[in-house]
């Protein structure tokens, strides 16, 4: 169904990856030289997780048409911001730099991407908020990048792929989380893999569609890792946003974790309350792609989860999950919609709750 009012917050929207040459002005000389002499600037850094022409990666009517002269920004406004009545959109640019093995090059490119986003997207479009792209394999670089950008309040989260170089709970990653917490930045885990490991526990499947589905298992493992390793003992205020992984699997995760904890607690004695409770407090999940088939079932799932605070509205633009502007499953009650589209996001992001936009949602005009 359509959004019944304007002023919503879209928590997952994707900016197109620019040609690598567009990043050159944002790189230091050594790296500009490396990119140019090695023709790295001619590479497209296309992530295997999102083949550009796949029917899922971009909705057909959202694809850029050759030669229509419309800028990327105008297209985004026309397709993703205006029609949904978006007040704030948390955008990310998932750049292939995160897949590089050279930590220094990856970090340099991530910085360039972030500066590019600030200048080319956040400056001209005040509705957009940004995600700080970091390389998870070198914590020092990642923290330095967070520190470098933390003053820019338009960046509201730090983003990592859910299936990265290591499970996100590992201690090696903690300096990143401390930095997030220090600066009121959420940690965003986004669907996708750096393919350091097979996308399933028993190796590599044959089809893209299998990898895409495997993201939910990736999220489950990531959440179990963050909880088990004690990240929330270290960073009790860290908020984790799970992007594009679905949420239908949450009840079983909560049940199983709570049960296991009772028998296995001694192994991880820093977990002093039910993991499910920590999860409900610290984790949030974006809506699209909604895998749960209808509103009645969504209500049941929310019942099983035991909280309606956890879902955040998202279009996952330009990924193709719904038609037209029907970004909500049909039949959701308006009170829930209000929570999902507005209250939950404001509460979820430390940097949005600061009143980035305090105006109340206004009722959308009746659309025919």
């Amino acid at each position: 169904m359509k959004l019944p009012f304007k002023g919503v917050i879209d928590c997952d929207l994707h900016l197109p990856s620019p040609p690598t040459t567009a990043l050159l002005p944002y790189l230091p000389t050594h790296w500009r030289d490396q990119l140019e002499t090695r023709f790295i600037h001619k590479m497209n850094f296309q992530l295997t997780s999102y083949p550009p022409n796949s029917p899922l990666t971009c909705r057909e009517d959202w694809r850029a048409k050759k030669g229509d002269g419309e800028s990327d920004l105008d297209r985004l406004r026309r397709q993703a911001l205006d029609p949904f009545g978006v007040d704030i959109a948390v955008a990310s640019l998932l750049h292939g730099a995160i897949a590089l093995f050279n930590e220094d090059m990856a970090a340099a490119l991530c910085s360039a991407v972030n500066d590019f986003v600030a200048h080319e997207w956040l400056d001209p479009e005040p509705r957009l908020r940004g995600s700080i792209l970091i390389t998870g394999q070198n914590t020092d670089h990642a923290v330095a990048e967070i520190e470098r950008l933390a003053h820019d309040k338009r960046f509201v989260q730090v983003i990592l792929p859910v299936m990265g170089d290591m499970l996100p709970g590992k201690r090696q990653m903690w300096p990143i989380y401390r930095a997030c917490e220090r600066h009121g930045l959420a940690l965003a885990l986004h669907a996708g893999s750096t393919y350091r490991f097979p996308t399933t526990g028993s190796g590599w499947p044959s089809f893209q569609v299998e990898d895409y589905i495997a993201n939910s298992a990736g999220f489950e493992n990531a959440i179990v890792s963050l909880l088990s390793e004690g990240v929330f003992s270290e960073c009790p205020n860290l908020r984790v946003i799970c992007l594009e992984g679905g949420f239908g699997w949450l009840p079983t995760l909560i049940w199983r974790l709570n049960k296991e904890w009772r028998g296995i607690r001694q192994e991880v004695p820093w977990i002093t309350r039910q993991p499910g409770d920590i999860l409900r407090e610290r984790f949030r999940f974006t809506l699209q792609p909604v895998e749960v088939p209808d509103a009645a079932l969504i209500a049941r799932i929310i019942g099983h989860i035991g909280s309606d605070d956890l879902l955040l509205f998202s279009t996952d633009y330009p990924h193709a999950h719904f038609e037209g502007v029907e970004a909500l499953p049909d039949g959701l009650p308006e009170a829930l919609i209000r929570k999902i589209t507005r209250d939950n996001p404001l509460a979820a992001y430390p940097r949005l709750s600061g009143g980035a936009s305090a105006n109340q949602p206004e009722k959308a005009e009746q659309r025919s």
Partner: protein
Amino acid sequence: MTRQLNRHVIGRADDLPPGSRKLVQVAGREIGVFNVHGAFYALANRCPHGGGSLCEGFVTGLSISAHPGKYELVREGEFLRCPLHGWEFEIATGQSYCDPKNTRLRTFNASVEHGAELVKGPYVAESFEVKIEEDYIVLDL
């Protein structure tokens, strides 16, 4: 007191030194009796979760942590781990550590009484032979 009528001598106190335990059957119930640092406690031998035979679990301490990676074992000997799913119970109270509200073991009062006291009462009727010069463990059911 009717309670008095349900008292059972289950053994000599010396036979159950600190840190040891004993499974007894009293009035058709299975009961585990534990000596924790000299104090006696009695718990129903059935975990309310999955029905595990609790007496066969490990008597342990409580693992706690001030911070991930920092481990400490405290209150050694005061907790019991179910042999099936590892749930931890405080022996003194029967309380589940993880779920104190909903999961609790049935506990019974266990006390030590001198043989001289016991032989006076009706307890001699128990199968247990009581001598006046020794101490015995008595359960209230």
